[in-house]
């Protein structure tokens, strides 16, 4: 190997790093490390001048390795790799030392933090000395896209793609398309008909020859990698369809919270306590009435059923507040004499037009009663002489009084929750669920529709509770990402994968069963195992498991990790 010339760059990150880690001392320390040709600092290494500093030094000082001591590589590894690549240095010859998220932000003792930053930097320097130039591979990108779920998000995504000329396979578990939106009458805040929204989508899907719909079907297996997935779709009992797809959009939606779990509301026992979905059914039928057919004199709507609760789900289900106001409006117009009470914790009116909608609701004389989070309005049957069917007792926050309100009809705004089959879906497509069962996106702020599995996207409520505009936006975003990919034609496979050294492999086959992607094959002729680079995800299980040390984990080799271990133990 020719002489090592390592450039070390210490980022101050404004004061994020510099106010705890002694950046000057770190620079002086780094400059003395083996192989280091230059050590420089800057306020924001990720900025254009910062990146330019690196590029300049690579070109002018002949650097052949770069270490950036800064934030987490999960933030800016790509930034600095790109800077290196643009300056003519292989991007894998760049390492980062995480002295922000894992140092300056978590330690307050300046001396200890600086010592640790030195150790982490030394680890990166010793490691990068062992890094190797790596080149990626290219593979074909199959344009056919698989969309799981035929609700508003799935339909929107399918149409966006199909109208872009892309073949779409739309898989829906139920007997018909439409998802949860098909159970809704009108939408808030503008009272668009859900049926109209859906009908428009459904017609376009039916007319578009690019879309193949599988009803009563599920994805049973997905193997391969982005651009080259093999999907198996099974319909209950009937035969399986195999299809090659390039990308997958998961738009499997949500399930509503089971109101029976909230025993103090009496759903399932009191006949006139219904859920929001049951009320939608009533609205679609065109008549608001009690169980025995009478018109209600008093209606009450209770927010946050199953949501924002320590006992059930901690999150907010986002759509219920505005839907509740929609119900208040609809009850008032259908049954003008009905008194409507709205029991809420907070009014979440964040969307476009929503605050106006809220104001109009209060002007329309809906009685708003605020109760505390964690408190329990209790519903019980009224006595025989009372002029209402039920009584609701609630500790009203604004007046500070415990009050009792009459109700003939109670609508429970049940929240959204993850579907029970979400775990199976996640496992099949290899994505993760968070603690509430929602699918996890690649980055909650910056990458909300991609997942950590390349080629698998998520859209709509399966990722988290959201309203129709957001579901549609995500569906179009995912479709847009895929269209961009297809436009590129080929996909690039990372140069990081496992490689069997045939000179050391004795064909024991211990690695064969270790690969979750079936990326290792055994050749009966040569009696050696080898890895299929395009299918390898570089997890390293085979590398660690090989008893002969015959598998090299590119970019995470034994030599590199040993060097890093030695480096951090200064």
């Amino acid at each position: 190997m020719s002489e090592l010339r390592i450039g070390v760059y210490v980022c101050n990150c404004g004061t994020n790093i510099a106010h705890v880690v002694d950046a000057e001392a770190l620079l002086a320390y780094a400059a003395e490390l083996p192989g280091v040709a230059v050590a420089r600092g800057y306020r924001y290494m990720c900025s254009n001048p910062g990146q330019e500093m690196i590029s300049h030094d690579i070109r002018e000082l002949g650097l052949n390795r770069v270490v950036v001591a800064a934030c987490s590589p999960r933030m800016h590894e790509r930034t600095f790799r790109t800077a290196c690549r643009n300056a003519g240095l292989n991007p894998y010859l760049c390492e980062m030392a995480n002295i922000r998220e894992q140092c300056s932000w978590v330690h307050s003792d300046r001396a200890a933090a600086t010592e640790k930053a030195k150790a982490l930097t030394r680890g990166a320097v010793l490691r990068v000395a062992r890094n190797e130039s790596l080149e990626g591979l290219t593979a074909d990108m199959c344009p056919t896209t698989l969309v799981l779920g035929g609700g508003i998000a799935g339909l929107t995504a399918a149409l966006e793609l199909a109208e872009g000329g892309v073949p779409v396979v739309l898989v829906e578990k139920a007997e018909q398309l439409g998802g949860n939106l098909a159970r809704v009458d009108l939408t808030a805040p503008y009272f668009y008909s859900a049926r109209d929204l859906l009908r428009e989508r459904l017609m376009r899907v039916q007319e578009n020859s690019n879309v193949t719909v599988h009803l009563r079907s599920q994805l049973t297996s997905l193997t391969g990698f982005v651009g080259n997935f093999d999907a198996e779709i099974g319909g209950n009992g009937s035969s399986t369809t195999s299809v090659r797809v390039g990308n997958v959009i998961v738009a499997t939606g949500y399930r509503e919270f089971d109101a029976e779990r909230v025993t103090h509301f009496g759903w399932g026992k009191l006949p006139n306590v219904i859920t929001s979905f049951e009320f939608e059914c009533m609205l679609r039928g065109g008549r608001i009435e009690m169980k025995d057919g009478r018109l209600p004199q008093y209606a009450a709507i209770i927010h946050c059923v199953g949501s924002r609760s320590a006992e059930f789900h901690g999150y907010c289900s986002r759509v219920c507040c505005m839907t509740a106001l929609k119900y208040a409006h609809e009850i008032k117009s259908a049954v003008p004499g009905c008194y409507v009470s709205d029991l809420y914790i907070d009014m979440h009116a964040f969307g476009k037009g929503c605050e106006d909608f809220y104001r109009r609701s209060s002007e329309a004389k809906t009685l708003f009663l605020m109760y505390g989070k964690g408190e329990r309005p209790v519903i019980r049957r009224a006595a025989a002489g009372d002029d209402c069917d039920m009584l609701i007792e609630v500790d009203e926050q604004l007046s500070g009084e415990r009050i009792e309100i009459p109700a003939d009809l109670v609508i429970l705004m049940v929240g959204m929750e993850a579907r029970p089959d979400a775990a199976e879906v996640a496992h099949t497509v290899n994505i993760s669920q968070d603690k509430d069962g929602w699918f996890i996106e690649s980055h909650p702020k910056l990458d909300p529709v991609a997942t950590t599995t390349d080629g698998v996207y998520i859209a709509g409520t399966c990722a988290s509770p959201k309203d129709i505009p957001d579901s549609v936006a995500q569906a179009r975003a995912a479709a847009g990402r895929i269209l961009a990919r297809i436009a590129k034609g080929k996909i690039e496979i990372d140069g990081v994968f496992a490689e069997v050294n045939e000179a050391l492999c004795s064909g024991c086959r211990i690695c064969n069963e270790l690969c979750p992607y079936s990326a290792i094959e055994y050749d009966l002729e040569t009696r050696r195992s080898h890895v299929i680079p395009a299918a390898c995800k570089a997890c390293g299980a085979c590398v660690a498991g090989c008893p002969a040390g015959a598998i090299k984990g590119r970019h995470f080799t034994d030599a590199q990790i040993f060097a890093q271990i030695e480096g951090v133990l200064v």
Partner: protein
Amino acid sequence: MGAGKLQVALYWGAACGGCDVAVLDTNEFILEVAKVADIRFWPIAVDGKYQDLEAMADGELDLTLFSGAVRNSENEHIARLLRRKSKLLVAFGSCAHLGGIPGLANLSSREAILATVYQGGPSLEPGSSAVPQTVTAVNGYELELPAFYPRVYRLADVVDVDYFVPGCPPAPAQVKSVLLAVVKGELPARGAVVGAGERTVCDDCTRTKSAKAVKRFFRPWEIIQDPERCLLEQGILCLGSATRSGCGVRCPNSNQGCRGCYGPAPGAVDQGAKFLSAISSIIDSKEPREIEAILGGLPDFVSFAYRFGLPASRLQRRHGG
């Protein structure tokens, strides 16, 4: 001393003599060796004294095959002496190469070992308590014994070693090939393992290999084995996948699992740690209690995985190499 003949020495440190027997097991070949070499020092086979060694000039010996580990001060002293007197010093056999079976003593302590042997053993007279001393007065004389070190070392922990010949003992065919290589001057770069292969025992083993998923480990007597099939797949412990090739698969061919005497594979740093990883990888379970139950079938795993190489393990070796 014959003119132009190779000057050769063989020595045994903490050894059993098996490596010396392996040299003799080359049968008639040893007579060929005698034609081209003078054996100047070989305690088991040839009369001689340490003074003969001390009298030699530095580098006078062309080749020394040092078998056995370094356990006491005598072993160390002679190791250093032989290093000075030899052009080529070869760690010969598992004990010199890796520490060998004596190396398992490093799981105990000197005090515990001496107590067991000299003070607590069932064959001792009750009340025995005499433990060997380095100096003992006897009849007006001072009797000296080598100091028993607190742990076992491999040869390379003490002196620079030129080549390593693995095996317990090295296979006679390999002994022959090494001696021929020395005679012909065809050795590779210094520091190499010679007289061995470049892969693992699996490479030479003719048993069929397929998917490995083990639900139970068996002692050899607990199962009627399939002689055609990989032993590990049948749940019979075999270190072959983690052991350097070259022995001729003598143990699996005798229906016993490989015991690892040829040491780690060329690509491995620590034989026991690598085998630990491999054997854990093939356990067919995801449930912690079941995993523990399956592992319960492994008797004394550490001694098994490091039977020949404990002093050479990453946590015990004295120098990095």
